[in-house]
């Protein structure tokens, strides 16, 4: 067998290196995954991981993370977590310190604080600049079948019952993806 092994999406080699060093020190697969994700959160990999990237329509950065233990099928995740930098570590706490699988939003934030994580602003000058540029014409956006026409105008929007567009995929590239 070609094990141990670590493999990750994209060319985020600092994360691979960290995970590999943990596996070579007889660390567990879970330790390796959490540590690799944490490196990417700290390095803000391509602006797609961690604080200071991918602002939402309100200019806020929120974080999602998931940890899965393939031995026990225990899992922990956070979604839309605000004001906490260490998303993967918090997901591990959800897995190890609760009977739940997924905590979201401000509830996830409060859980993280209870687990000892520090609350902090996830915005940076970079993310706020991105957002300010986007705000001038609100393009692209994720609205559909609303008025005013979301391809031309900013919100707020209302449902437009006379518009029925087909489901479509979103623009994704190396700097903008899940």
């Amino acid at each position: 067998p070609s094990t141990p092994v670590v493999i990750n999406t994209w060319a985020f080699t600092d994360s691979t290196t960290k995970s590999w060093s943990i596996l070579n020190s007889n660390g567990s697969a879970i330790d390796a995954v959490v540590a690799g994700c944490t490196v990417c959160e700290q390095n803000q990999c391509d602006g797609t991981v961690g604080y200071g990237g991918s602002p939402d329509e309100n200019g806020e950065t929120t974080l999602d993370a998931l940890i899965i233990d393939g031995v026990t099928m225990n899992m922990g995740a956070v979604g839309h977590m605000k004001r906490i930098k260490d998303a993967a570590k918090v997901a591990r706490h959800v897995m190890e310190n609760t009977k739940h699988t997924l905590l979201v939003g401000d509830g996830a934030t409060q859980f993280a604080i209870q687990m000892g994580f520090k609350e902090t602003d996830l915005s940076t000058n970079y993310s706020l600049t991105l957002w300010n540029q986007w705000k001038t014409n609100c393009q692209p956006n994720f609205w559909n079948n609303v008025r005013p026409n979301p391809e031309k105008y900013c919100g707020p929007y209302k449902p437009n019952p006379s518009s029925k567009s087909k489901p479509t995929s979103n623009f994704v590239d190396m700097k903008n993806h899940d």
Partner: protein
Amino acid sequence: TIGIVAIDHNGNIAAGTSTNGAKFKIPGRVGDSPIPGSGAYAMNNIGAASATGDGDIMMRFLPSFHAVQAMKYGHNPKDAAQLAINTIVQYYPEFSGAIIVVDKYGHYGAACHGFDKFPYSIANSNFGKVMVLYAEC
């Protein structure tokens, strides 16, 4: 987004993801990354997978679960990855995304759609160091 799969010296498998999601999303939106079976999945007696790309589309097909189940039914990691991507392409030919897949022996594969090529990083006992490999989409 980063998705990671690891197998340790004891043969135990774990998987995970971390992301800040899509740029300029509607507040409250969560993508595929924290959804078990979508952003990642792992089963010790089979293998694991992790996906990346357009999360709004990918989460509708649970591609990581799909790939692990495909390996359960005999497909190798590369074929399992391609099967998961092909299912999405049937419905959303314009979507962009990729998946990495590893079986319990450490054999790996990747598949992608909508990019020219997709980079992924790997270190194992054969390479002995970190390598960046590319899947052709």
